[in-house]
């Protein structure tokens, strides 16, 4: 029966027929008022309490999830910080091994250079030869007056001549020595420069080392904060995790795009190898085979990245000894190379088949078969893509690792938020039901208001009589129960 049918029937019923039924109904409802109120209130209370309990349980679950998220976040953050610090130490180690391992040689070289410079300095400090001692004797002789004796004058002239000659000789000697000193100083220049350069290099190396140590200090501070589980560290890790999640998801989407292109490159020529009409389930065998090749390439990429210790998805590979790991690198790289070559040749075949199909379609449509100029360009392009894409897919392992790690945190945050929302919703519904129960009780009273009005009047009269000192003969049981419950 539809609502319109019901309305139609009600329209045919006269009011005179309805009123007695309504009166009986109201009286019956009045009689059942107290238990009905109890039932409604109990139902409301039960549902309210049940929903409140559920909300509490949900909040407890949310707390547990939040705790777990915190644990996961800190443990992954700790691991990541340890890896970064380890890497920084490796870099410092490399700098020390590369630059400071030959420090004794450098020191010896510097000492040699210094000794050479010192020696040269001493050489340059040599004084010019002093004027001969007899010059003073000559001076004394030169003071003798020469006017009286011509022989004396001759002697003095000779002395003068000798002195001049000696002066010239001394000056020449001095110039020679000076030139030699300048030569020595000149020779000192490259030694000085070399020494300066060596010191500069040393300074740069120490600066680099200092820079690394500063980075390590920063990382160590972060590491200590994570270990101390501070709120700041948690906020920073959550934000970093969310950023990682979105970035890695974006890169993975790009990789999926690359895989689809790769798939389209090799699906058609694969049908030439495995047959175009065979199926596995509802999928063409050629498509499945193409997909398998791409997935194998991705798997090889994972192994390669793992063996190179770039990613840490498989602990077993990380735990292998270095010789085994190097073998794995070569094996996975060789398989990748072979697959890339296969893809390249498949791309070549695809171009050939696509060309034939296109020519057939053109001939079927009655148009002239066109030969495209430079038709080798798309062929070479496809072959190159077929060769490069497998190697490009290799790098999917890096964003995938980030995605896997960050997804744990992001999922945890989402679940936690969902639980909190659910708890709120449960509490809200519980309260709504509680107040709906009270509303229903009031509505119930509204429906039976004539009887309540009469009851109220009777009670008022009894009270008045009681106030006048007249005891009521009987006590209304319903009213008593009502008052008791109130």
């Amino acid at each position, binding site marked *: 029966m539809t609502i319109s049918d019901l309305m139609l029937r009600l329209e045919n019923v006269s009011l005179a027929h309805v009123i007695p039924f309504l009166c009986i109904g109201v009286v019956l409802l009045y009689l059942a008022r107290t238990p009905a109120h109890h039932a409604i209130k109990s139902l409301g209370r039960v549902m309210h309490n049940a929903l409140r309990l559920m909300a509490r349980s949900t909040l407890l679950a949310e707390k547990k999830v939040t705790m777990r998220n915190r644990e996961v976040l800190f443990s992954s953050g700790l691991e990541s910080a340890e890896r970064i610090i380890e890497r920084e130490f490796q870099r410092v180690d490399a700098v020390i091994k590369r630059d400071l391992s030959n420090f004794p040689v450098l020191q010896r070289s510097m000492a040699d250079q210094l000794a050479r410079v010192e020696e040269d300095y001493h050489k340059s400090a040599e004084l010019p030869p002093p004027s001969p001692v007899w010059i003073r004797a000559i001076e004394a002789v030169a003071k003798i007056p020469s006017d009286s004796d011509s022989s004396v004058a001759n002697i003095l002239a000779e002395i003068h001549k000798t002195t001049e000659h000696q002066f010239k000789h001394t000056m020449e000697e001095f110039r020679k020595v000076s030139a030699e000193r300048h030569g020595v100083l000149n020779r000192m220049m490259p030694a000085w420069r070399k020494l300066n350069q060596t010191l500069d290099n040393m300074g740069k190396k120490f600066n680099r080392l200092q820079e690394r140590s500063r980075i390590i200090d920063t990382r160590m501070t972060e590491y200590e904060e994570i270990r101390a589980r501070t709120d700041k560290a948690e906020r920073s890790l959550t934000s970093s995790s969310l950023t990682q999640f979105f970035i890695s998801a974006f890169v993975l989407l790009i990789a999926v795009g690359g895989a689809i292109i790769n798939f389209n490159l090799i699906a*058609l020529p694969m*049908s*030439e190898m495995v*047959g*175009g*009409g*065979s*199926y*596995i*389930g*509802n999928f063409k*065998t050629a498509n499945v085979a193409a997909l398998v090749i791409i997935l194998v390439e991705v798997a090889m990429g994972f192994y390669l990245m793992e063996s190179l210790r770039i990613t840490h998805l498989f602990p077993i590979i990380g735990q292998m000894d270095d010789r085994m790991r190097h073998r794995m690198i070569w094996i996975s790289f060789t398989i990748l190379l072979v697959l890339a070559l296969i893809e390249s040749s498949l791309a070549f075949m695809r171009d*050939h*088949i696509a060309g*034939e*199909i296109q020519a*057939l*379609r053109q*001939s*079927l*449509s009655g148009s002239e078969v066109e030969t495209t100029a430079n038709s080798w360009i798309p062929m070479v392009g496809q072959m190159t893509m077929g060769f490069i894409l497998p190697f490009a897919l290799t790098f999917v392992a890096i964003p995938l690792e980030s995605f896997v790690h960050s997804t744990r945190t992001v999922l945890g945050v989402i679940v936690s938020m969902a639980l909190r929302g659910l708890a709120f919703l449960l509490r809200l519904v519980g309260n709504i039901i509680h107040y709906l129960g009270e509303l229903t009780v009031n509505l119930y009273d509204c429906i039976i208001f004539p009887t309540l009005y009469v009851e109220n009047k009777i009670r008022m009269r009894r009270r008045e009589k009681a106030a006048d000192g007249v005891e009521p003969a009987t006590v209304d049981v319903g009213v008593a129960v009502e008052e008791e419950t109130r």
Partner: protein
Amino acid sequence: MKRLIGSLLLVGVLLIWGCPDTSSHSRGVFMLLDSSGTYKKELKQSEAIINYLLGTLNPGDYLAVARIDSGSFSEKDIIAKTTFDRRPSMTVRQKRQFRKNIDEFMRTAKSSSFTDIDGGILQAIDYLDEHDAGKKHILIFSDLVQDLPKGHVREKIPFKMPGYNVLALNVIKLNKDNIDPRKYYERIEKLRLRIEDGGGKLTVIKDLDRLDAILTK
């Protein structure tokens, strides 16, 4: 543990490679071309449909084209038939050869005195039943006016064609249909009853663009 992993891997490999889908995904198409006197001039239009079929059928599908003449229940009436190779490059060559055979027929086709549509359908069923195609289509390019030579028995032979999809193409209206359209509808209805009694389904296609949607269903 290692044995367990090994066994699981083996089972997985066997599941993927060892159990290929047994149901056939190939399509079998048998096209009947009416070459009777009144309809022969329409044959040129059938070339477009054959070209369309050659363009859309895939490796592993079956295609045969036969003519409807005085007695069509005969292999001699098959103009060209082929099972497309699993390799796409080979399929392209087969399609070229098929097209050549059809061109040759179009050049040399002679009109027949009678029209044995039921015989052609029986021949098509015979051919398609022989090939294990997943989807079977019979395309009838005719005005559906059957005119049998004396002595040929067709009406009493029921069609056994469960799952067959029969497409009547280019069912032109004749002059007598214009005078009394009931004859046109009776023709179609009669064929429909025969086909549906055999378990098949008849679709009359006036707009050839619908062919694509029906064949790829």
